[in-house]
């Protein structure tokens, strides 16, 4: 019963399914192999997806029961010290009118399932509970298929697409991607907190179909290079807090404790009050950025999505890059099939597509950002502390003249951080994202 | 109340409460309800807002607030009550084990007596076997008013078909309104056959029986959904109302050899089918010596939290001190540390010792239903929130590795002192 396929895709996440959908539309014989019991089984609720990238795969996704939780109409940015913090928020009507579905929250377990269903309808076979353990190669070391952990588990194909995520034992085993260094990975813990729809609407000042994202940095990560987010789902909130793995290893902070502390922060607590924790999970995020992107193609294979470290750490964009890289993989494969040539030369078209798109352009733009954050831990300690101190001083009405307060603030600031290092920080920070 | 596009107020499912029984699916007159991932799902566009589903849902998982509709139990059914009136008496199948009545049968006779008093009727024993006169006398001593016996060499050992036919025959002839059977391997094998032959309702593994006042219906309560919740079930329009009951749920009544009752002997026509033949019987050795944990006055029960090889000898020592035996919860069996015969709980044995000492047992409902009848319950668990503490008479919060040696040490002292 051994069958041959045109394309074998490893991983039924956003990247793999995007490739699969587009290939199947062209009538290309495609099979996706997923290690989870179902697509999305390894994910939990609470992710942001981007309409632009999804529409390139499924143009009418809003009409196809896509399990959208809330359409994001407002983004907030918080800069937190232990006792309080700054909040900056932006909301625009455009996000519920012409740019509706620019970004929206989804429960990944549900979305991934839905997305895979779309692929199945187009004729893709999605095989679950199956782990790809190795790649098959011919005598010239060209990739010609995969080996799985099932009996008679070999599967031959003209092209293999590796889209099995950041935590890919396969990439490491085959040597296609060096094992990411701890400093290139963030370890994040996520909790989903259930709350009635109306309460969320009230607390975030939204309608049911509209939602808010909050991105947070500051002392909440205990001085580690990290970030926290709060996303609104229909009747739950996703809380996620993470930090660089190397920082975790050094500080010995327990992620779960950090999450618990975060939940008790005076800015966070009121949002989740009376909520019920529903799910908890830890996961990895690729945030090494541009410098860590491996060779994304070779004879008979392509790497897409998180497996290729395609993740924008500053803007928390990953799923969009996964979908778009998946789309480019499909386009490249279509080309290769037309030529019946699956050598690295033809497949190199994949990378030129990425380079000409926002994917590599954005990652390149922010290529120093990862190193910058790691070198400047004051971003997560001194700065938010001083900032809150300043605001708190200025806002406290206690009879002290404002001029004296200003002096006191400056004195404290200068004591903790030199003018020179502040300027240097600003300059380097600017350079890392310009 | 949500409305659909036609402006009809529609019913809504509360997925967290839905247990997937599908009664609403069957009741919906327009087919608006489907099952999705084990939970009912109403299509609001098809729903006509009649509220039938709301009325039949046993778990209040349907939200429907249309004015003027009060929740009622179920829609009436056309059945002539006269047909049911011919059925009288509470019957118990008396299972025989090595020439004696099974303990569970006597427990059921005790319960049947209670039910019969409420119904103002008689307790009937159904006894099948060969040379079972002694058991018939025993049945009367335990509380049967009438014992119907089929004494036939054909029924010397239990075989599904002849026993099924014999008990069906007796039910048809005697027409009891209730028929109780012990949920033993034999009882469970037999009950399904008889209920199918009689085309009546059978509720398995009940842990509670009662009579609904006014209606004189048998209310049968049993754990369901993997033992996570309890369901009360009734059988309104078919007789007899049949139920199997777990051993050790009810107390064995006092035996009174002076009691009198009637014994009726019935003839038997063996089924005309080729029957299986017993080739061999292998006594259980899996538990070492065929021990039956239900017979011990004290049990040390190892749970998932104490599931390691090194601890087992300590638990054995502890069990020795309290005059009992080591048993366990399901995860310990699954880990291969103990044989199935030692498992307490829904899928294991129901125990009711005088002293239950749980070590690292968290107290999942499946386990609790199998031990709640214990006289004294001590729980040792590291998690202060473990549900076992809610049923325990005394609890120790702490690591079993520290607590167990201390328990042994102090128990030794206490015993020496006395």
């Amino acid at each position, binding site marked *: 019963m051994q069958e041959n396929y045109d394309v074998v895709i490893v991983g039924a996440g956003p990247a793999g399914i995007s490739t699969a959908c587009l290939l199947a539309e062209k009538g290309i014989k495609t099979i996706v192999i997923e290690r989870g019991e179902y697509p999305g089984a390894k994910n939990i609720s609470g992710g942001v997806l981007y309409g632009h990238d999804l529409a390139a795969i499924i143009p009418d996704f809003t009409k196809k029961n896509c399990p959208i939780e809330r359409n994001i109409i407002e983004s907030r940015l918080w800069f937190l010290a232990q006792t309080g913090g700054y909040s900056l928020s932006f909301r625009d009507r455009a996000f519920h009118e012409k740019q509706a579905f620019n970004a929206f929250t989804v429960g990944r377990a549900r979305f991934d399932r839905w997305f895979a269903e779309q692929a199945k309808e187009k004729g893709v076979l999605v095989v679950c509970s199956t782990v790809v353990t190795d790649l098959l190669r011919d005598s010239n070391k060209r990739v010609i298929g995969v080996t799985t952990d099932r009996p008679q588990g070999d599967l031959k194909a003209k092209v293999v697409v590796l889209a099995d995520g950041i935590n890919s034992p396969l990439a490491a085993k085959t040597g296609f991607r060096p094992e990411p260094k701890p400093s290139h990975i963030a370890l994040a813990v996520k909790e989903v907190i259930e709350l009635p729809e109306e309460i969320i609407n009230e607390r975030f000042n939204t309608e049911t179909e509209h939602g808010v994202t909050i991105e947070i940095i500051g002392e909440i990560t205990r001085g580690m290079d990290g970030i926290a987010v709060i996303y609104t789902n229909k009747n739950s909130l996703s809380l996620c807090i993470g930090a660089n793995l190397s920082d975790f290893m050094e500080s010995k902070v327990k992620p779960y404790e950090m999450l618990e502390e975060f939940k008790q922060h005076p800015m966070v607590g009121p949002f989740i009050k009376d909520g019920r924790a529903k799910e908890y999970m830890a996961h990895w995020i690729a945030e090494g950025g541009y410098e860590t992107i491996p060779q994304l193609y070779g004879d008979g294979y392509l790497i897409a999505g998180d497996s290729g470290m395609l993740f924008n750490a500053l803007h928390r964009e990953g799923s969009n890059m996964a979908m778009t890289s998946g789309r480019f993989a499909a386009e490249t494969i279509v080309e290769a099939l037309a030529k019946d040539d699956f050598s690295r030369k033809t497949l190199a078209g994949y990378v030129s597509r990425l380079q000409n798109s926002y994917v590599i352009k954005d990652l390149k733009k922010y290529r120093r950002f990862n190193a910058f954050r790691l070198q400047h831990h004051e971003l997560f300690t001194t700065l938010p502390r001083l900032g809150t101190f300043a605001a708190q001083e200025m806002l406290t009405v206690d009879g002290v003249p404002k001029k004296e307060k200003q002096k006191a603030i400056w004195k404290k600031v200068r004591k903790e951080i030199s003018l020179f290092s502040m300027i240097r920080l600003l300059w380097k920070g600017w350079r890392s994202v310009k | 109340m949500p409305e659909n596009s036609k402006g009809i107020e529609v019913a809504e499912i509360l997925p*967290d409460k839905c247990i997937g029984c599908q009664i609403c699916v*069957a009741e919906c007159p327009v087919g608006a309800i489907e099952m999705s991932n084990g939970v009912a799902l109403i299509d609001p566009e098809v729903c006509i807002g009649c509220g039938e589903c709301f009325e039949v849902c046993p778990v209040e998982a349907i939200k429907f607030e249309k004015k003027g509709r009060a929740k009622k139990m179920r829609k009436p059914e056309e059945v002539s009550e006269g047909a049911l009136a011919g059925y009288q008496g509470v019957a118990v199948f008396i299972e025989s084990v090595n020439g004696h009545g099974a303990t569970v049968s006597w427990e059921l006779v005790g319960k049947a007596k209670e039910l019969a008093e409420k119904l103002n009727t008689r307790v009937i024993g159904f006894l099948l076997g060969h040379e079972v006169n002694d058991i018939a006398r025993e049945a009367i001593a335990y509380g049967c008013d009438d014992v119907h016996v089929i004494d036939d060499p054909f029924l010397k050992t239990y075989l599904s078909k002849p026993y099924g036919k014999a008990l069906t025959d007796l039910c048809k002839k005697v027409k009891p309104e209730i028929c109780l059977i012990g949920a033993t391997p034999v009882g469970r094998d037999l009950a399904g056959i008889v209920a199918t032959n009689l085309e009546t309702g059978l509720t*398995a593994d009940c842990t509670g029986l009662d009579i609904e006042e006014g209606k004189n219906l048998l209310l049968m309560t049993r754990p369901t959904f993997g033992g996570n919740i*309890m369901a*009360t079930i009734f059988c309104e329009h078919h007789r007899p109302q049949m139920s199997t009951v777990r051993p050790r749920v009810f107390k064995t009544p006092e035996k009174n050899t002076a009691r009198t009752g009637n014994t009726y002997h019935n003839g038997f026509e063996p089924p005309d089918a*080729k029957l299986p033949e017993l080739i061999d019987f292998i006594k259980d050795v899996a538990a070492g010596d065929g021990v039956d944990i239900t017979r011990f006055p*004290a049990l040390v029960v190892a749970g998932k939290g104490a599931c390691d090889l090194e601890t087992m000898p300590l638990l054995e020592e502890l069990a020795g001190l309290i005059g009992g035996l080591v048993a366990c919860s399901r995860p310990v069996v699954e880990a291969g540390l103990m044989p199935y015969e030692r498992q307490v709980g829904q899928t294991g044995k129901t125990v009711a010792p005088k002293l239950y000492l749980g070590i690292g047992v968290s107290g999942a*409902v499946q386990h609790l239903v199998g031990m709640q009848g214990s006289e004294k319950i001590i729980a040792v668990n590291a998690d202060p929130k473990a549900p076992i503490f809610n049923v325990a008479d005394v609890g120790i919060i702490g690591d079993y590795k520290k607590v167990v040696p201390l328990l042994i040490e102090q128990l030794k002292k206490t015993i020496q002192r006395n």
Partner: protein
Amino acid sequence: MHFICCIKQVPDTSKVKIDPETNTLIRSGVESIANPYDMVALEAALTLKDTYGGIVTVLSMGPPQAEQVLREAVSLGADEAILLSDRAFAGADTLATSYALTKAIEKLAQKTPVDIVCCGKQAIDGDTAQVGPGIATRLGYTQFTYVTEIKEIDTINARITVKRKVEGGSEIIRGPLPAVLTVELELAKPRRASLPRLIHSLKSEVSLWNAAAIHGDNQKLGLKGSPTWVKKIFSPPLKEGGPRFDAREKPRQAVEDCLKTLLADETFAFQFLNQWGR
């Protein structure tokens, strides 16, 4: 030989949790799976097919999504899959379920005579263990419940020998075919599907049979054919429990206090110290 295996799709009750505050079932997030006992029954049927040849037909009753468990069965080696799905089947108790399954088996038997029907001992959601005996009784087949081992099939004399669990031990019993077997978990460990079969199962057809297809009496199907009714469902009442002693800091004291409390009940203490009167 023709082996039929009945499979029920059930919620994975082992993953159900109770909300400690409200004492109610947390139902969401619980996946539907094939009843584990039924998967052992399928393994038994497949092993018999491997040994004696023939075909394995899998049969389930449930909503359309239940075809998932049948597909799983096909991936493991079942030759044909039939799903009884109709609103008329909904709300069935064990009597109505065994009726519908029996009618389907009778229909299958017309095409290829049936030798053995394999069922799980019970389903993990209801734990009734009644459908197997119900089918055996309706079909008039030999009934073997709690089977832990299939010893052999004597194809010439149409007999099967099995080992089954009984009170206090096991019996070896031989009886005529056709037979219904309900199996214990220990009988076999379900195999893992090969990749080609798994792919095959994704592409294969599951036949859908409605009430008309099995020529059943509608009064005996689904809710109408179910004598038993659920009156109410409730969580076991929460109990408070007795005193708890914290052994995390002062273990010795806690153990001492615990025993003291226990033995404060004089009747109990007397029985206990006299080793329960032995």
